[in-house]
Protein backbone atom coordinates (compact mmCIF):
# COMPACT_ATOMS: atom_id res chain seq x y z
CA UNK A 1 0.00 0.00 0.00
CA UNK A 2 1.60 3.20 -1.15
CA UNK A 3 -0.23 6.09 0.40
CA UNK A 4 2.92 8.01 1.26
CA UNK A 5 6.43 7.76 -0.11
CA UNK A 6 9.46 9.55 1.25
CA UNK A 7 10.82 10.51 -2.17
CA UNK A 8 8.86 13.39 -3.62
CA UNK A 9 10.53 14.15 -6.95
CA UNK A 10 8.54 13.55 -10.11
CA UNK A 11 10.09 12.58 -13.41
CA UNK A 12 10.68 15.78 -15.30
CA UNK A 13 8.76 16.30 -18.49
CA UNK A 14 11.97 17.80 -19.87
CA UNK A 15 13.88 14.50 -19.82
CA UNK A 16 14.40 11.41 -17.78
CA UNK A 17 17.43 9.44 -16.74
CA UNK A 18 16.95 5.96 -15.40
CA UNK A 19 19.90 4.88 -13.26
CA UNK A 20 18.77 1.28 -12.90
CA UNK A 21 18.74 -1.81 -15.04
CA UNK A 22 15.22 -3.15 -15.59
CA UNK A 23 14.92 -6.86 -16.15
CA UNK A 24 12.29 -9.02 -17.74
CA UNK A 25 12.57 -12.69 -16.85
CA UNK A 26 11.18 -15.20 -19.34
CA UNK A 27 11.39 -18.80 -18.19
CA UNK A 28 10.74 -21.50 -20.70
CA UNK A 29 7.02 -21.98 -21.06
CA UNK A 30 5.51 -25.19 -19.71
CA UNK A 31 4.09 -27.73 -22.10
CA UNK A 32 5.62 -29.79 -24.91
CA UNK A 33 9.31 -28.92 -24.62
CA UNK A 34 10.26 -27.88 -28.12
CA UNK A 35 7.05 -26.00 -28.75
CA UNK A 36 7.13 -24.22 -25.39
CA UNK A 37 10.79 -23.24 -25.76
CA UNK A 38 10.31 -21.89 -29.25
CA UNK A 39 7.27 -19.85 -28.23
CA UNK A 40 9.15 -18.25 -25.35
CA UNK A 41 12.13 -17.54 -27.61
CA UNK A 42 9.90 -15.82 -30.13
CA UNK A 43 8.32 -13.68 -27.43
CA UNK A 44 11.82 -12.78 -26.30
CA UNK A 45 12.82 -11.80 -29.85
CA UNK A 46 9.65 -9.76 -30.24
CA UNK A 47 9.99 -7.79 -27.02
CA UNK A 48 13.72 -7.18 -27.10
CA UNK A 49 13.66 -4.60 -29.97
CA UNK A 50 11.49 -2.33 -27.82
CA UNK A 51 14.25 -1.89 -25.24
CA UNK A 52 15.66 1.32 -26.67
CA UNK A 53 18.12 3.11 -24.45
CA UNK A 54 17.60 6.56 -25.93
CA UNK A 55 15.03 7.96 -28.35
CA UNK A 56 16.19 7.79 -31.92
CA UNK A 57 16.88 9.63 -34.21
CA UNK A 58 16.21 12.73 -32.08
CA UNK A 59 16.71 13.08 -28.33
CA UNK A 60 16.14 16.78 -27.62
CA UNK A 61 15.42 16.17 -23.93
CA UNK A 62 18.56 14.12 -23.43
CA UNK A 63 16.64 11.09 -22.16
CA UNK A 64 18.49 8.00 -21.02
CA UNK A 65 16.21 5.10 -20.21
CA UNK A 66 19.00 2.96 -18.79
CA UNK A 67 19.61 -0.68 -19.44
CA UNK A 68 16.77 -3.04 -20.28
CA UNK A 69 17.57 -6.74 -20.16
CA UNK A 70 15.69 -9.91 -20.91
CA UNK A 71 16.83 -12.89 -18.88
CA UNK A 72 16.01 -16.15 -20.49
CA UNK A 73 15.79 -19.50 -18.69
CA UNK A 74 15.70 -22.85 -20.44
CA UNK A 75 13.72 -24.32 -17.54
CA UNK A 76 10.07 -23.53 -16.78
CA UNK A 77 8.89 -22.29 -13.42
CA UNK A 78 8.79 -24.95 -10.70
CA UNK A 79 5.09 -24.29 -10.47
CA UNK A 80 2.86 -22.40 -12.86
CA UNK A 81 1.71 -19.67 -10.51
CA UNK A 82 2.21 -15.98 -9.85
CA UNK A 83 3.66 -16.84 -6.47
CA UNK A 84 6.42 -18.94 -8.01
CA UNK A 85 7.01 -16.37 -10.71
CA UNK A 86 7.44 -13.75 -8.02
CA UNK A 87 9.90 -15.93 -6.13
CA UNK A 88 11.87 -16.69 -9.27
CA UNK A 89 12.17 -12.98 -10.01
CA UNK A 90 13.66 -12.34 -6.60
CA UNK A 91 16.46 -14.88 -7.01
CA UNK A 92 19.75 -12.99 -6.63
CA UNK A 93 20.89 -14.05 -10.09
CA UNK A 94 17.65 -12.85 -11.64
CA UNK A 95 16.54 -9.71 -9.75
CA UNK A 96 13.80 -9.03 -12.28
CA UNK A 97 10.97 -6.52 -12.20
CA UNK A 98 8.74 -8.42 -14.65
CA UNK A 99 8.18 -12.11 -15.28
CA UNK A 100 6.50 -13.31 -18.47
CA UNK A 101 5.50 -16.94 -18.13
CA UNK A 102 2.94 -19.41 -19.31
CA UNK A 103 2.05 -22.70 -20.82
CA UNK A 104 1.40 -24.18 -24.23
CA UNK A 105 -1.85 -25.97 -23.60
CA UNK A 106 -3.30 -28.51 -26.05
CA UNK A 107 -6.99 -27.79 -26.37
CA UNK A 108 -9.19 -29.38 -28.96
CA UNK A 109 -7.40 -29.72 -32.26
CA UNK A 110 -4.86 -26.98 -31.62
CA UNK A 111 -2.77 -25.34 -28.95
CA UNK A 112 -3.52 -22.28 -26.89
CA UNK A 113 -0.56 -20.56 -25.28
CA UNK A 114 -1.63 -18.97 -22.04
CA UNK A 115 0.50 -16.00 -21.07
CA UNK A 116 0.81 -14.41 -17.66
CA UNK A 117 2.62 -11.35 -16.41
CA UNK A 118 3.84 -10.99 -12.84
CA UNK A 119 5.21 -7.71 -11.53
CA UNK A 120 6.63 -8.58 -8.11
CA UNK A 121 7.05 -5.93 -5.50
CA UNK A 122 10.17 -6.39 -3.40
CA UNK A 123 13.34 -4.67 -2.36
CA UNK A 124 15.31 -4.87 -5.59
CA UNK A 125 17.76 -2.10 -4.71
CA UNK A 126 16.74 0.23 -7.49
CA UNK A 127 17.34 3.90 -6.95
CA UNK A 128 14.13 4.96 -8.69
CA UNK A 129 10.70 3.39 -9.09
CA UNK A 130 9.24 5.17 -12.09
CA UNK A 131 6.31 2.78 -12.25
CA UNK A 132 4.89 4.30 -9.05
CA UNK A 133 3.06 7.50 -9.89
CA UNK A 134 3.68 10.21 -7.36
CA UNK A 135 2.22 13.67 -7.19
CA UNK A 136 3.93 16.16 -4.93
CA UNK A 137 2.06 19.13 -3.54
CA UNK A 138 3.38 21.53 -0.91
CA UNK A 139 0.96 19.94 1.54
CA UNK A 140 2.13 16.41 0.88
CA UNK A 141 2.84 13.67 -1.64
CA UNK A 142 0.39 11.08 -2.86
CA UNK A 143 1.24 7.96 -4.80
CA UNK A 144 -0.54 5.10 -6.52
CA UNK A 145 0.79 1.67 -7.30
CA UNK A 146 0.43 -0.13 -10.60
CA UNK A 147 -3.15 -1.07 -11.53
CA UNK A 148 -2.40 -4.76 -11.05
CA UNK A 149 0.71 -6.80 -10.41
CA UNK A 150 -0.61 -10.19 -11.47
CA UNK A 151 -2.65 -10.74 -14.57
CA UNK A 152 -3.33 -12.93 -17.53
CA UNK A 153 -3.12 -11.76 -21.10
CA UNK A 154 -5.14 -13.11 -23.99
CA UNK A 155 -4.01 -16.55 -25.01
CA UNK A 156 -2.17 -17.00 -28.27
CA UNK A 157 -3.92 -19.45 -30.53
CA UNK A 158 -1.41 -21.39 -32.57
CA UNK A 159 -2.11 -21.54 -36.29
CA UNK A 160 -1.68 -25.02 -37.77
CA UNK A 161 1.34 -23.96 -39.84
CA UNK A 162 2.85 -22.16 -36.85
CA UNK A 163 2.22 -25.21 -34.72
CA UNK A 164 4.11 -27.41 -37.15
CA UNK A 165 6.93 -24.91 -37.33
CA UNK A 166 7.21 -24.41 -33.60
CA UNK A 167 7.38 -28.10 -32.92
CA UNK A 168 10.62 -28.37 -34.83
CA UNK A 169 13.88 -28.15 -32.87
CA UNK A 170 15.21 -26.12 -35.76
CA UNK A 171 12.46 -23.49 -35.51
CA UNK A 172 14.95 -20.79 -34.67
CA UNK A 173 17.75 -21.47 -37.09
CA UNK A 174 20.56 -18.96 -37.31
CA UNK A 175 21.57 -17.99 -40.83
CA UNK A 176 24.75 -16.46 -42.12
CA UNK A 177 22.99 -13.61 -43.92
CA UNK A 178 19.70 -11.64 -43.79
CA UNK A 179 18.43 -13.46 -46.86
CA UNK A 180 18.53 -16.66 -44.77
CA UNK A 181 19.95 -19.02 -47.32
CA UNK A 182 22.72 -20.72 -45.32
CA UNK A 183 21.95 -22.08 -41.86
CA UNK A 184 24.93 -21.96 -39.50
CA UNK A 185 23.37 -22.99 -36.19
CA UNK A 186 20.38 -22.63 -33.84
CA UNK A 187 19.52 -20.05 -31.23
CA UNK A 188 19.92 -22.39 -28.30
CA UNK A 189 19.65 -21.31 -24.72
CA UNK A 190 21.36 -17.97 -24.78
CA UNK A 191 22.01 -15.28 -27.31
CA UNK A 192 22.52 -11.55 -27.56
CA UNK A 193 20.30 -9.48 -29.80
CA UNK A 194 22.14 -6.93 -31.95
CA UNK A 195 19.73 -5.54 -34.54
CA UNK A 196 16.04 -6.10 -35.23
CA UNK A 197 14.51 -5.16 -38.55
CA UNK A 198 11.69 -6.24 -40.84
CA UNK A 199 10.72 -9.31 -38.77
CA UNK A 200 14.26 -10.66 -38.47
CA UNK A 201 17.00 -10.20 -35.92
CA UNK A 202 20.78 -10.18 -36.01
CA UNK A 203 22.08 -12.08 -33.01
CA UNK A 204 25.28 -13.31 -31.46
CA UNK A 205 25.23 -16.93 -30.28
CA UNK A 206 28.51 -17.58 -28.55
CA UNK A 207 31.14 -16.57 -31.09
CA UNK A 208 28.77 -16.83 -34.02
CA UNK A 209 26.91 -13.85 -35.47
CA UNK A 210 23.96 -14.50 -37.71
CA UNK A 211 20.33 -13.82 -38.51
CA UNK A 212 17.10 -15.40 -37.25
CA UNK A 213 13.54 -14.94 -38.30
CA UNK A 214 10.69 -14.25 -35.88
CA UNK A 215 7.59 -15.75 -37.51
CA UNK A 216 4.11 -14.60 -36.55
CA UNK A 217 2.70 -16.35 -33.54
CA UNK A 218 -0.86 -15.81 -34.53
CA UNK A 219 -3.10 -14.17 -37.08
CA UNK A 220 -3.87 -11.40 -34.62
CA UNK A 221 -0.83 -9.59 -33.33
CA UNK A 222 -0.82 -10.55 -29.67
CA UNK A 223 -1.16 -7.71 -27.22
CA UNK A 224 1.16 -9.67 -24.96
CA UNK A 225 4.18 -8.16 -26.70
CA UNK A 226 2.95 -4.56 -26.64
CA UNK A 227 1.66 -4.79 -23.05
CA UNK A 228 4.90 -6.29 -21.78
CA UNK A 229 6.99 -3.82 -23.74
CA UNK A 230 4.83 -0.92 -22.58
CA UNK A 231 5.16 -1.84 -18.92
CA UNK A 232 8.91 -2.35 -19.34
CA UNK A 233 9.10 1.14 -20.79
CA UNK A 234 7.17 2.56 -17.82
CA UNK A 235 9.67 1.03 -15.43
CA UNK A 236 12.43 2.74 -17.45
CA UNK A 237 10.68 6.14 -17.72
CA UNK A 238 10.38 5.81 -21.50
CA UNK A 239 7.06 7.64 -21.33
CA UNK A 240 6.68 8.22 -25.07
CA UNK A 241 7.41 4.59 -25.75
CA UNK A 242 5.02 3.43 -23.05
CA UNK A 243 2.23 5.67 -24.33
CA UNK A 244 2.72 4.33 -27.88
CA UNK A 245 2.76 0.70 -26.77
CA UNK A 246 -0.38 1.14 -24.71
CA UNK A 247 -2.13 2.87 -27.60
CA UNK A 248 -1.53 -0.27 -29.66
CA UNK A 249 -2.81 -2.49 -26.84
CA UNK A 250 -5.96 -0.38 -26.65
CA UNK A 251 -6.56 -0.45 -30.40
CA UNK A 252 -6.10 -4.24 -30.62
CA UNK A 253 -9.61 -5.76 -30.78
CA UNK A 254 -8.27 -8.97 -29.19
CA UNK A 255 -7.24 -7.23 -25.99
CA UNK A 256 -9.31 -8.46 -23.03
CA UNK A 257 -11.38 -5.78 -21.32
CA UNK A 258 -9.49 -6.08 -18.03
CA UNK A 259 -6.16 -5.57 -19.81
CA UNK A 260 -7.63 -2.67 -21.80
CA UNK A 261 -8.55 -0.91 -18.55
CA UNK A 262 -4.97 -1.25 -17.35
CA UNK A 263 -3.61 -0.05 -20.71
CA UNK A 264 -5.70 3.13 -20.47
CA UNK A 265 -4.39 3.73 -16.96
CA UNK A 266 -0.79 3.14 -18.00
CA UNK A 267 -1.14 5.36 -21.06
CA UNK A 268 -2.72 8.11 -18.99
CA UNK A 269 0.04 7.92 -16.42
CA UNK A 270 2.70 8.08 -19.16
CA UNK A 271 1.03 11.16 -20.65
CA UNK A 272 0.94 12.83 -17.24
CA UNK A 273 4.67 12.17 -16.86
CA UNK A 274 5.16 13.94 -20.19
CA UNK A 275 3.40 17.01 -18.82
CA UNK A 276 0.15 16.28 -20.67
CA UNK A 277 -3.21 15.38 -19.20
CA UNK A 278 -4.03 11.70 -19.01
CA UNK A 279 -7.60 12.47 -17.94
CA UNK A 280 -9.19 11.21 -21.15
CA UNK A 281 -7.47 7.83 -20.74
CA UNK A 282 -8.57 7.54 -17.12
CA UNK A 283 -12.13 8.35 -18.12
CA UNK A 284 -11.99 5.60 -20.74
CA UNK A 285 -10.85 3.19 -18.04
CA UNK A 286 -13.65 4.40 -15.80
CA UNK A 287 -16.20 3.86 -18.57
CA UNK A 288 -15.04 0.25 -18.87
CA UNK A 289 -15.06 -0.43 -15.13
CA UNK A 290 -16.51 2.24 -12.82
CA UNK A 291 -16.33 -0.12 -9.85
CA UNK A 292 -12.57 -0.29 -9.53
CA UNK A 293 -11.02 1.84 -6.82
CA UNK A 294 -7.79 1.72 -8.80
CA UNK A 295 -9.50 3.61 -11.63
CA UNK A 296 -10.93 6.14 -9.18
CA UNK A 297 -7.47 6.66 -7.70
CA UNK A 298 -5.99 7.39 -11.12
CA UNK A 299 -8.79 9.87 -11.87
CA UNK A 300 -8.08 11.67 -8.62
CA UNK A 301 -4.33 11.58 -9.22
CA UNK A 302 -4.88 13.31 -12.56
CA UNK A 303 -6.63 16.19 -10.79
CA UNK A 304 -3.98 16.29 -8.07
CA UNK A 305 -1.29 16.49 -10.77
CA UNK A 306 -3.18 19.40 -12.33
CA UNK A 307 -3.30 21.11 -8.92
CA UNK A 308 0.45 20.64 -8.59
CA UNK A 309 1.08 22.78 -11.68
CA UNK A 310 2.17 26.28 -10.78
CA UNK A 311 0.31 28.42 -13.29
CA UNK A 312 -3.29 27.64 -12.38
CA UNK A 313 -5.92 30.32 -11.89
CA UNK A 314 -7.66 30.31 -8.53
CA UNK A 315 -11.00 29.43 -10.10
CA UNK A 316 -9.48 26.41 -11.82
CA UNK A 317 -7.93 25.29 -8.56
CA UNK A 318 -11.30 25.44 -6.89
CA UNK A 319 -12.90 23.46 -9.71
CA UNK A 320 -10.31 20.72 -9.36
CA UNK A 321 -10.71 20.54 -5.61
CA UNK A 322 -14.46 20.27 -5.96
CA UNK A 323 -14.14 17.60 -8.63
CA UNK A 324 -11.81 15.52 -6.46
CA UNK A 325 -14.19 15.80 -3.53
CA UNK A 326 -17.17 14.90 -5.72
CA UNK A 327 -15.35 11.90 -7.22
CA UNK A 328 -14.53 10.52 -3.81
CA UNK A 329 -17.98 11.22 -2.47
CA UNK A 330 -19.71 9.48 -5.38
CA UNK A 331 -17.53 6.38 -5.11
CA UNK A 332 -17.08 6.09 -1.37
CA UNK A 333 -18.76 2.70 -1.30
CA UNK A 334 -15.99 1.00 -3.28
CA UNK A 335 -13.29 1.86 -0.74
CA UNK A 336 -12.75 -0.13 2.45
CA UNK A 337 -13.55 1.78 5.65
CA UNK A 338 -9.90 2.13 6.64
CA UNK A 339 -8.40 3.01 3.27
CA UNK A 340 -5.14 4.83 3.97
CA UNK A 341 -4.88 6.38 0.51
CA UNK A 342 -8.38 7.84 0.81
CA UNK A 343 -7.60 9.25 4.25
CA UNK A 344 -4.44 10.84 2.95
CA UNK A 345 -6.14 12.49 -0.02
CA UNK A 346 -8.96 13.81 2.14
CA UNK A 347 -6.46 15.20 4.62
CA UNK A 348 -4.50 16.81 1.82
CA UNK A 349 -7.64 18.38 0.35
CA UNK A 350 -8.59 19.85 3.69
CA UNK A 351 -5.16 21.46 4.03
CA UNK A 352 -5.11 23.06 0.59
CA UNK A 353 -5.40 26.87 0.72
Amino acid at each position, binding site marked *: *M*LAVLTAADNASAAGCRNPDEIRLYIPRFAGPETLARNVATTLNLSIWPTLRRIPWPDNPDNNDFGRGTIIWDHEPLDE*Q*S*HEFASRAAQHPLVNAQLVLWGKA*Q*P*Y*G*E*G*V*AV*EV*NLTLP*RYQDFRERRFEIWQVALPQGTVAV*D*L*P*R*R*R*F*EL*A*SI*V*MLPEALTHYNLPSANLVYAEPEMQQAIGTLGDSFVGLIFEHGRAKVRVGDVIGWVQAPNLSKVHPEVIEMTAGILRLFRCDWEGAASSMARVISNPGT*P*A*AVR*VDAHLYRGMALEQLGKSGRDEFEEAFA*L*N*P*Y*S*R*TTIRYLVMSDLAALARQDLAATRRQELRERIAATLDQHY*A*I*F*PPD*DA*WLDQVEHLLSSLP
Partner: protein
Amino acid sequence: MLTPFLLGVAGALALASAPAAHADRAEMYLFKYNGVRSEADQQAFDEFTEIVTTKLSRLADEVTQPDQDESPASHLSVILVIDPQTREHLPFRQSNSDLHLYWQRQAALAVLSGRVRKDQGIYSVLSRVYVGDLRGELESSFIEIALPIASEQYDTTRDSHSIVTLYALAMDIVERCGPLHEAIHLFGEAKLRLQDVVAAAPQMEMLHEPIEAGLRRAQQSCGGQ
Protein backbone atom coordinates in the same frame (compact mmCIF):
# COMPACT_ATOMS: atom_id res chain seq x y z
CA MET B 1 -5.50 -26.17 -6.19
CA LEU B 2 -7.21 -29.50 -6.81
CA THR B 3 -8.18 -31.34 -3.65
CA PRO B 4 -9.83 -34.77 -3.81
CA PHE B 5 -13.05 -34.86 -1.85
CA LEU B 6 -14.14 -38.00 -0.06
CA LEU B 7 -17.76 -38.97 -0.16
CA GLY B 8 -19.28 -40.93 2.70
CA VAL B 9 -20.71 -43.94 0.88
CA ALA B 10 -19.46 -45.42 -2.39
CA GLY B 11 -21.65 -44.42 -5.29
CA ALA B 12 -24.05 -42.29 -3.24
CA LEU B 13 -24.07 -38.85 -1.74
CA ALA B 14 -24.14 -38.86 2.04
CA LEU B 15 -26.57 -36.12 2.95
CA ALA B 16 -26.82 -34.79 6.45
CA SER B 17 -30.21 -33.83 7.81
CA ALA B 18 -29.11 -30.23 8.52
CA PRO B 19 -26.85 -27.94 6.53
CA ALA B 20 -23.49 -27.03 8.03
CA ALA B 21 -22.89 -23.52 9.29
CA HIS B 22 -20.28 -21.66 7.28
CA ALA B 23 -18.35 -18.49 6.97
CA ASP B 24 -17.79 -17.48 3.38
CA ARG B 25 -18.29 -20.02 0.63
CA ALA B 26 -15.11 -20.76 -1.28
CA GLU B 27 -15.28 -24.31 -2.62
CA MET B 28 -16.48 -25.38 -6.02
CA TYR B 29 -17.30 -29.06 -6.43
CA LEU B 30 -16.67 -30.55 -9.83
CA PHE B 31 -18.42 -33.76 -10.81
CA LYS B 32 -17.41 -35.80 -13.80
CA TYR B 33 -19.44 -34.67 -16.78
CA ASN B 34 -21.71 -37.16 -18.51
CA GLY B 35 -20.92 -38.44 -21.99
CA VAL B 36 -17.34 -39.44 -21.21
CA ARG B 37 -17.02 -42.99 -22.49
CA SER B 38 -13.89 -43.45 -24.57
CA GLU B 39 -10.27 -42.46 -23.98
CA ALA B 40 -10.68 -39.66 -26.48
CA ASP B 41 -13.74 -38.42 -24.58
CA GLN B 42 -11.77 -38.53 -21.36
CA GLN B 43 -8.88 -36.61 -22.88
CA ALA B 44 -11.22 -33.88 -24.10
CA PHE B 45 -12.84 -33.63 -20.68
CA ASP B 46 -9.44 -33.63 -18.97
CA GLU B 47 -8.29 -30.73 -21.15
CA PHE B 48 -11.44 -28.80 -20.28
CA THR B 49 -11.08 -29.55 -16.57
CA GLU B 50 -7.42 -28.52 -16.63
CA ILE B 51 -8.03 -25.07 -18.05
CA VAL B 52 -11.05 -24.32 -15.87
CA THR B 53 -9.44 -25.42 -12.62
CA THR B 54 -6.17 -23.65 -13.47
CA LYS B 55 -7.98 -20.42 -14.29
CA LEU B 56 -10.07 -20.51 -11.13
CA SER B 57 -6.97 -21.22 -9.02
CA ARG B 58 -5.46 -17.97 -10.31
CA LEU B 59 -8.60 -15.88 -10.12
CA ALA B 60 -7.65 -14.52 -6.72
CA ASP B 61 -4.36 -13.20 -8.08
CA GLU B 62 -6.15 -11.36 -10.84
CA VAL B 63 -8.88 -9.73 -8.76
CA THR B 64 -6.84 -8.96 -5.65
CA GLN B 65 -5.99 -5.29 -5.84
CA PRO B 66 -2.39 -4.10 -5.19
CA ASP B 67 -3.38 -2.59 -1.84
CA GLN B 68 -4.76 -5.91 -0.58
CA ASP B 69 -3.01 -8.95 0.78
CA GLU B 70 -5.97 -11.10 -0.12
CA SER B 71 -9.49 -10.93 -1.46
CA PRO B 72 -12.69 -12.98 -1.08
CA ALA B 73 -11.36 -15.12 -3.93
CA SER B 74 -8.16 -15.97 -2.07
CA HIS B 75 -9.54 -19.17 -0.56
CA LEU B 76 -11.24 -20.34 -3.71
CA SER B 77 -10.62 -23.99 -4.51
CA VAL B 78 -11.96 -26.48 -7.04
CA ILE B 79 -12.58 -29.93 -5.65
CA LEU B 80 -12.99 -33.00 -7.82
CA VAL B 81 -15.68 -35.24 -6.39
CA ILE B 82 -14.19 -38.71 -6.24
CA ASP B 83 -15.07 -42.08 -4.80
CA PRO B 84 -12.89 -42.62 -1.71
CA GLN B 85 -12.34 -46.28 -2.46
CA THR B 86 -11.95 -46.46 -6.22
CA ARG B 87 -10.56 -42.90 -6.54
CA GLU B 88 -12.83 -42.60 -9.52
CA HIS B 89 -14.11 -39.18 -10.53
CA LEU B 90 -17.85 -39.40 -9.99
CA PRO B 91 -20.69 -38.08 -12.14
CA PHE B 92 -23.77 -36.50 -10.60
CA ARG B 93 -26.82 -38.60 -11.31
CA GLN B 94 -29.34 -37.53 -8.72
CA SER B 95 -32.19 -35.05 -8.62
CA ASN B 96 -32.06 -31.28 -8.54
CA SER B 97 -33.36 -31.27 -4.97
CA ASP B 98 -30.54 -33.64 -4.01
CA LEU B 99 -28.13 -31.26 -5.70
CA HIS B 100 -29.44 -28.39 -3.59
CA LEU B 101 -29.03 -30.43 -0.43
CA TYR B 102 -25.50 -31.28 -1.50
CA TRP B 103 -24.76 -27.61 -2.18
CA GLN B 104 -26.07 -26.70 1.25
CA ARG B 105 -24.31 -29.49 3.13
CA GLN B 106 -20.94 -28.81 1.56
CA ALA B 107 -21.41 -25.06 2.05
CA ALA B 108 -20.38 -24.90 -1.56
CA LEU B 109 -19.96 -21.79 -3.61
CA ALA B 110 -21.04 -23.76 -6.67
CA VAL B 111 -21.36 -27.27 -8.00
CA LEU B 112 -20.29 -28.08 -11.54
CA SER B 113 -21.71 -30.89 -13.61
CA GLY B 114 -22.57 -31.24 -17.25
CA ARG B 115 -22.02 -33.15 -20.42
CA VAL B 116 -19.36 -33.71 -23.07
CA ARG B 117 -20.62 -34.24 -26.61
CA LYS B 118 -19.00 -35.16 -29.89
CA ASP B 119 -20.59 -34.09 -33.11
CA GLN B 120 -18.93 -34.71 -36.47
CA GLY B 121 -15.60 -35.12 -34.76
CA ILE B 122 -15.81 -31.90 -32.78
CA TYR B 123 -16.12 -32.04 -29.03
CA SER B 124 -18.23 -29.58 -27.09
CA VAL B 125 -18.92 -29.21 -23.40
CA LEU B 126 -22.04 -28.12 -21.58
CA SER B 127 -21.32 -26.95 -18.04
CA ARG B 128 -24.19 -26.66 -15.59
CA VAL B 129 -23.02 -24.48 -12.74
CA TYR B 130 -25.33 -24.66 -9.72
CA VAL B 131 -25.13 -21.68 -7.35
CA GLY B 132 -28.00 -22.57 -5.03
CA ASP B 133 -29.24 -19.71 -2.89
CA LEU B 134 -26.68 -17.36 -4.42
CA ARG B 135 -28.73 -17.02 -7.60
CA GLY B 136 -29.84 -13.46 -6.83
CA GLU B 137 -31.88 -12.19 -9.81
CA LEU B 138 -30.99 -15.17 -12.03
CA GLU B 139 -34.07 -17.01 -13.31
CA SER B 140 -32.59 -20.27 -12.15
CA SER B 141 -29.87 -21.47 -9.81
CA PHE B 142 -28.36 -23.19 -12.83
CA ILE B 143 -26.09 -21.30 -15.20
CA GLU B 144 -25.45 -23.24 -18.39
CA ILE B 145 -22.33 -22.64 -20.44
CA ALA B 146 -22.08 -24.45 -23.78
CA LEU B 147 -18.89 -24.16 -25.81
CA PRO B 148 -16.84 -26.18 -28.30
CA ILE B 149 -13.60 -27.70 -27.01
CA ALA B 150 -11.42 -25.78 -29.44
CA SER B 151 -8.30 -23.67 -29.08
CA GLU B 152 -10.17 -20.61 -30.38
CA GLN B 153 -12.58 -20.97 -27.43
CA TYR B 154 -9.85 -21.24 -24.84
CA ASP B 155 -10.26 -17.75 -23.41
CA THR B 156 -14.06 -17.82 -23.59
CA THR B 157 -14.16 -21.13 -21.75
CA ARG B 158 -11.93 -19.87 -18.99
CA ASP B 159 -13.55 -16.45 -18.72
CA SER B 160 -17.16 -17.68 -18.73
CA HIS B 161 -16.49 -19.91 -15.73
CA SER B 162 -14.60 -17.08 -14.04
CA ILE B 163 -17.56 -14.74 -14.46
CA VAL B 164 -19.96 -17.18 -12.86
CA THR B 165 -17.51 -17.70 -10.00
CA LEU B 166 -17.08 -13.97 -9.44
CA TYR B 167 -20.84 -13.51 -9.44
CA ALA B 168 -21.32 -16.27 -6.88
CA LEU B 169 -18.54 -14.90 -4.66
CA ALA B 170 -20.07 -11.43 -4.76
CA MET B 171 -23.56 -12.75 -4.03
CA ASP B 172 -22.22 -14.70 -1.09
CA ILE B 173 -20.83 -11.49 0.40
CA VAL B 174 -24.14 -9.70 -0.12
CA GLU B 175 -26.21 -12.53 1.30
CA ARG B 176 -24.18 -12.74 4.51
CA CYS B 177 -23.77 -8.96 4.88
CA GLY B 178 -20.03 -9.14 4.35
CA PRO B 179 -17.75 -6.27 3.24
CA LEU B 180 -19.87 -4.69 0.52
CA HIS B 181 -16.96 -2.83 -1.10
CA GLU B 182 -15.55 -6.28 -1.92
CA ALA B 183 -18.85 -7.37 -3.42
CA ILE B 184 -18.95 -4.25 -5.58
CA HIS B 185 -15.41 -4.95 -6.78
CA LEU B 186 -16.23 -8.57 -7.69
CA PHE B 187 -19.47 -7.65 -9.46
CA GLY B 188 -17.49 -5.01 -11.36
CA GLU B 189 -14.88 -7.59 -12.40
CA ALA B 190 -17.62 -9.98 -13.52
CA LYS B 191 -19.30 -7.25 -15.54
CA LEU B 192 -15.99 -6.26 -17.13
CA ARG B 193 -15.19 -9.79 -18.24
CA LEU B 194 -18.70 -10.32 -19.53
CA GLN B 195 -17.92 -7.91 -22.35
CA ASP B 196 -15.31 -10.33 -23.69
CA VAL B 197 -17.40 -13.49 -23.72
CA VAL B 198 -20.90 -12.58 -24.89
CA ALA B 199 -19.90 -12.57 -28.55
CA ALA B 200 -18.66 -16.17 -28.42
CA ALA B 201 -21.07 -17.32 -25.70
CA PRO B 202 -24.32 -15.33 -26.07
CA GLN B 203 -26.01 -17.36 -23.33
CA MET B 204 -23.79 -15.53 -20.84
CA GLU B 205 -25.85 -12.38 -21.46
CA MET B 206 -28.27 -13.86 -18.90
CA LEU B 207 -25.87 -12.65 -16.23
CA HIS B 208 -25.98 -8.99 -17.23
CA GLU B 209 -29.09 -7.94 -15.31
CA PRO B 210 -28.39 -10.09 -12.24
CA ILE B 211 -24.93 -8.50 -12.00
CA GLU B 212 -26.47 -5.03 -12.26
CA ALA B 213 -29.03 -5.97 -9.61
CA GLY B 214 -26.24 -7.29 -7.40
CA LEU B 215 -24.33 -4.03 -7.79
CA ARG B 216 -27.38 -2.01 -6.79
CA ARG B 217 -27.92 -4.19 -3.77
CA ALA B 218 -24.26 -4.05 -2.75
CA GLN B 219 -24.33 -0.25 -2.80
CA GLN B 220 -27.08 -0.15 -0.20
CA SER B 221 -26.49 -0.63 3.46
CA CYS B 222 -26.85 -4.16 4.65
CA GLY B 223 -29.46 -5.12 7.22
CA GLY B 224 -29.81 -1.52 8.36
CA GLN B 225 -26.18 -1.29 9.46
